[in-house]
């Protein structure tokens, strides 16, 4: 799929997205970004979604309305109306027929890391698909189930972080520095119940060796499911990608994270791109767009190798330079979900001119703050100069 068009779906009048290797969606809350990304998941993985629903005992009766409720979540069938249309690469999709006919089984092609990822863990352990209600969104349940499979099958007694077989050593160092400090993430048992804990190595000066889930910081609770999602996408082998997965969606990757942690996560997104994944992000963080802006400008300027790594304060190692080189050749798109017109606008050029859209509204506050201070200073004069 290269192009997705939605018309009169939920609050969206018209959304036209041409996907790049990296596609970033910005816009205020409730403008349709998440619904658009979930539609992408549904259309890329229709056969897989139907298989999973059936496998877990969910029956939509081959009708569209219950299928939308079970996929998007309870009450969400109302997003589809008589005038709603969806098209892939210009070809209109008959959604009623899609629900009525069982699609051929196919392996999952799109891995979706939802904004609600924090609820994927309960008491420090990933929740299985069936732990959720039938009215909970499919993408949350599916993500949670993937984490359960990952932790139960690939980390039986091992430490989860840091782990030599997982992630480039540069990323491990950056995560250690900017997210985990000197803590490690590992599987622990409490009254025979396995759970993920943060802890210090035995023999450290800390009195307690483990920190259970309930005492983790908000940022750690947000980051651990995200980290496990990256583990899922980066198998501990020479294989570049997991299974047949080609697409990755990460909603609001910045959630709960300090800007330094956001930097590391963006670098890891670039690693996904260098592995050949097509990545779609939604974000409310100007920092994410700053990095996209840096990529576009450094590429246009023919900047020297290492320039992008400098923007991340990352070391210029061979591994990271390779990631940088790969990203510089990728197509990057940015779309603004306009809340007034309920349409999408291609703002990929990321012009820094001050306008109503100003990077999808993400920098309008900075502009306004600058102008308010400048106006006051222009009247009264800077200290010592007037």
């Amino acid at each position, binding site marked *: 799929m290269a192009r997705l068009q939605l018309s009169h779906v939920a609050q969206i009048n018209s959304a036209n997205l041409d996907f790049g290797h990296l596609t970033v969606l910005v816009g205020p809350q409730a403008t349709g970004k998440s619904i658009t990304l979930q539609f992408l998941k549904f259309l890329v993985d229709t056969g897989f979604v139907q298989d999973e629903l059936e496998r877990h005992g969910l029956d939509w009766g081959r009708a569209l309305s219950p299928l939308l409720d079970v996929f998007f979540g309870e009450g969400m069938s109302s997003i589809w109306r008589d005038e709603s249309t969806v098209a892939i690469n210009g070809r209109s999709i008959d959604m009623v027929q899609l629900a009525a006919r069982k699609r051929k089984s196919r392996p999952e092609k799109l891995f979706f890391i939802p904004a609600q990822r924090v609820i994927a863990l309960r008491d420090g352990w990933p929740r299985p698909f069936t732990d959720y209600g039938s009215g909970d969104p499919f993408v949350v349940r599916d993500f949670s189930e993937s984490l359960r499979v990952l932790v139960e099958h690939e980390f039986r007694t091992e430490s989860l972080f840091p782990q030599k077989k997982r992630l480039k050593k540069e990323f491990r160092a950056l995560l250690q520095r900017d997210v985990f400090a000197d803590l490690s993430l590992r599987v622990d048992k409490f009254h025979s119940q396995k759970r993920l804990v943060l802890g210090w190595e035995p023999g450290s000066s800390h009195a307690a060796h483990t920190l259970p889930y309930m005492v983790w910081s908000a940022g750690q609770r947000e980051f651990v499911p995200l980290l496990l999602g990256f583990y899922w996408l980066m198998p501990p082998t020479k294989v570049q990608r997991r299974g047949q997965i080609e697409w990755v969606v990460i909603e609001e990757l910045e959630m709960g994270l300090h800007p330094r942690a956001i930097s590391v996560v963006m670098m890891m997104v670039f690693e996904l791109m260098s592995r050949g994944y097509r990545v779609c992000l939604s974000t409310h963080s*100007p920092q994410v767009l*700053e990095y996209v*802006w840096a990529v576009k*400008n450094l590429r246009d300027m023919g900047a020297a190798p290492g320039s992008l790594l400098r923007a991340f304060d990352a070391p210029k190692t061979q591994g990271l330079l390779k990631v940088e080189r790969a990203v510089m050749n990728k197509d990057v798109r940015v779309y603004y979900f306009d809340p007034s017109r309920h349409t999408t606008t291609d703002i990929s050029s990321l*012009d*820094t*001119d*001050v*306008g109503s859209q*100003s*990077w999808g509204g993400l*920098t309008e506050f*900075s*502009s306004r*703050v*600058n*102008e308010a*201070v*400048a*106006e006051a*200073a*222009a*009247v009264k*004069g*800077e200290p010592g*100069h*007037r």
Partner: protein
Amino acid sequence: MTFKSAVRSLPVLEGCFHVGLQALRSSDRSRVTAMRPRRLRGSIDIDNCLRTYYANDPRWDYGIATRQSSTDRVYWLEVHPANDGEVEAVAKKLRWLKKWLAREGNAVDLTPRAFIWVASGRTALTQNSPKLKQLARLGLVFKGGHFKIP
């Protein structure tokens, strides 16, 4: 005092007043749009007019006046490359302009006033840049590649 009469009262600005935006060099003209052209009260090319007197100084570019209620408001406009490395150069120009307005050009220092920086060529500054915040404290607003006069 109107902007026109203020300019004409200063001998160093003799012959510098132009109607509308005509003082702007053709290369800079496309970077400025007057949203209400009838309110324009004239413009001056300071850089050019004061070249003889301040040949080696970091001279400012333009002054543009518009009618705002009962007074003339002046937008002091600098067209300059926009990247982090040029921020200090623009700050120097602004300091020079303020000194000139305080001493010699006091007659044209009408209020309200605003100091505006428009990028010439590619913009390599984001609105989040801390350096733009430094300039804001000096009274300068960076408007990207184009300035719309309200």
